[in-house]
C-alpha cells in the first residue's frame, strides 16, 4: 500500500497519495464545513469522525468539526462528492471530481438570480443567514423628484429653532455655539439642508415670526416631474457570494417578485420530537440556514412549542440532528437532487444510504 500523507493546516487538511498512475488529494476546509456529517454517513470505510458539533457551534470548544484517519481513508472521494457545502474536494491528477463526469454531484449552491425581475428591494440581503447576498443600489438624486424653493429671512428670524423641531425631514440645521464673552450668542445661524427639504411648508406655518417662505413646485409642475424608473433612475445589482451560499432558499422564499431560484440538495422533512428536546440550543447554533428557532412567548402566560423548524428554509443537511445530544431531531431525506447521477453501482448504493435514515 502506498503511504498516505496528511498535512494539517489552520483551517483544514489535505490527505494525499502519490501513486504511479494517479495522484489523489483530498481537501477539507473547516470554514465551509457546517458539520452536517453527510461525509461521515457516506464514507465506505468509516474513516471520518465528527467533532463535538454542538459545543463547537455554540463556541464552547475550539476544535475541528471533523477528522479523517489518513490510514483508513481510501481517497475514493464519496465524501467530497456528497458534501452539500463544498467543504471537501478530491483531485485526481490535479482534476477535481466535481468536474469529472464519471463522478456524481449533488446540487449545491444552486442559486439563480433573475436580475430583470429583481425590484432591488434588498430584502434578500436582510434575510440571508450566511450574508452571501449583497444588493447594490444607487438612486437618482432627490432633486429630480422634489422641487421647490425655501428662504429664511435672517432679519426676521430669531433663531428659536421651532421650525427645526417641527421639520419632518430634519432639514433645518441650527448652528450652536458655546457662549463665551467674545461670542455670547448660543445660536449663531440657521441653514436648510436642501438635499433633505421636501418643501412641505410646515416650517412656514409654524414660524411665529413669519421668517420662512416656501414655494413648492411639485403640484403645479406635476407633469414635468418624472416617475422614477427601475434600472434607469434606480440602478442596482444583486451579488451572490457562492462560496458562502448554502442554498437554504430563504431569499427565494421571501422574494416578492420571484427573482431568485434556489434548488436544494435534498427533498424531505425535519421531524422534531419536542418532548425529548431539552432546549440546549445546539441545533439552533449549528444550523447553517437559521431554520430552527426557540419561539418566545408574547406574554408570560402564552404556551409556545419548545422548538420549531421552518421546512421552507431547511436544506436537510442533518447538522442539527448530528449535534442534538438527545436525538430529538430526525432528518428524513426522501430524494437527492443530483446535478450528475452516480454511474457506478457501489456509488448509487452509497448515496441511497443518505435517504430515509
Amino acid at each position: 500500500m502506498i503511504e498516505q500523507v496528511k498535512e494539517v493546516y489552520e483551517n483544514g487538511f489535505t490527505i494525499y497519495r502519490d501513486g504511479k498512475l494517479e495522484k489523489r488529494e483530498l481537501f477539507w476546509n473547516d470554514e465551509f464545513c457546517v458539520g452536517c456529517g453527510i461525509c461521515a454517513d457516506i464514507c465506505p470505510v468509516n474513516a471520518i469522525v465528527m467533532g463535538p458539533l454542538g459545543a463547537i457551534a455554540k463556541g464552547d470548544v475550539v476544535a475541528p468539526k471533523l477528522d479523517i484517519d489518513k490510514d483508513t481513508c481510501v481517497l475514493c472521494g464519496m465524501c467530497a462528492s456528497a458534501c452539500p457545502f463544498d467543504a471537501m474536494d478530491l483531485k485526481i491528477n490535479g482534476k477535481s471530481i466535481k468536474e469529472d463526469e464519471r463522478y456524481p454531484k449533488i446540487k449545491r449552491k444552486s442559486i439563480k438570480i433573475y436580475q430583470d425581475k429583481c425590484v432591488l428591494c434588498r430584502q434578500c440581503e436582510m434575510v440571508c443567514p450566511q450574508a452571501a447576498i449583497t444588493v447594490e443600489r444607487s438612486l437618482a438624486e432627490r432633486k429630480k423628484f422634489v422641487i421647490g424653493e425655501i428662504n429664511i429671512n435672517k432679519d426676521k428670524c430669531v433663531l428659536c429653532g421651532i421650525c427645526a423641531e417641527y421639520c419632518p425631514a430634519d432639514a433645518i440645521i441650527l448652528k450652536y455655539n458655546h457662549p463665551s464673552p467674545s461670542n455670547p450668542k448660543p445660536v449663531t445661524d440657521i441653514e436648510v439642508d436642501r438635499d433633505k427639504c421636501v418643501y412641505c411648508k410646515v416650517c412656514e406655518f409654524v414660524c411665529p415670526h413669519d421668517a420662512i417662505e416656501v414655494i413648492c413646485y411639485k403640484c403645479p409642475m406635476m407633469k414635468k416631474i418624472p416617475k422614477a424608473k427601475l434600472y434607469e433612475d434606480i440602478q442596482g445589482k444583486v451579488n451572490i457570494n457562492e462560496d458562502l451560499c448554502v442554498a437554504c432558499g430563504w431569499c427565494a422564499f421571501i422574494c416578492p417578485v420571484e427573482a431568485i431560484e434556489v434548488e436544494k440538495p435534498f427533498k424531505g422533512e425535519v421531524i422534531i420530537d419536542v418532548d425529548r428536546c431539552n432546549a440546549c440550543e445546539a441545533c439552533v447554533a449549528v444550523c447553517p440556514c437559521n431554520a430552527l428557532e426557540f419561539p418566545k412567548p408574547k406574554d408570560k402566560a402564552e404556551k409556545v412549542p419548545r422548538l420549531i423548524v421552518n421546512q421552507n428554509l431547511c436544506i436537510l443537511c442533518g447538522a442539527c440532528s448530528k449535534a442534538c445530544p438527545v436525538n430529538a431531531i430526525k432528518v428524513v431525506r426522501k430524494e437527492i437532487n443530483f446535478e450528475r447521477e452516480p454511474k457506478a453501482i457501489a456509488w448509487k448504493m452509497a448515496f441511497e444510504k443518505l435517504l430515509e435514515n
Partner: protein
Amino acid sequence: MPEHILSGIKAIISMKLRRKGLTQKEIAKIIKSDRSIVSHYLSGRYPKEKILRVAKTIEEIPPEYGARIIHSLTEDKELAKNLIKELYNIKLSWNKDSCIFCGTCLMCEVLTLDYLTINIDYNSCILCGNCVLNCPTNSLKFVRESYD
C-alpha cells in the same frame, strides 16, 4: 526452513498435476525444479510428512493469505505465481458492482482504470494478493477458476 516448506508445496502441486496427467518433465518446468526431484516428490520419498503438513495447511487457508506466504518463501516471482496458480487454481477477479473506484489497487501496474472499468493484465499479475488485501470493499478477490 522456507526452502523446506517450498518443497512441501511443490510436492503437493506435483501430485496434483500428475493426477491431471502431466508428465514429470512438464511438472518440472512449472515448479522450476529438476525432473529427478519431481520423481522424489511423486514417490513420497521427499519431503518429510511434517513438512507436507505445513504445506497442506497453507493449501487450506484463504488464497489471499496463502499467496503472501508463498511469495515470502521465494524471490522468484514467476515461480511463486505458478505455485499459487496450481495450488489454489485461482485468478484475480474484479466486481464492478461493489467497486468504489478509490484507486487503492492502482499502485500495482497490473491494474488499470479505464473510465469505470478496472482492467486486469492477467499475464503480468503475479498473484501477490496485495490488491485483494488492500481493497476496502472486497471488490478484488481471488476466485477459483473452472476446470474446463
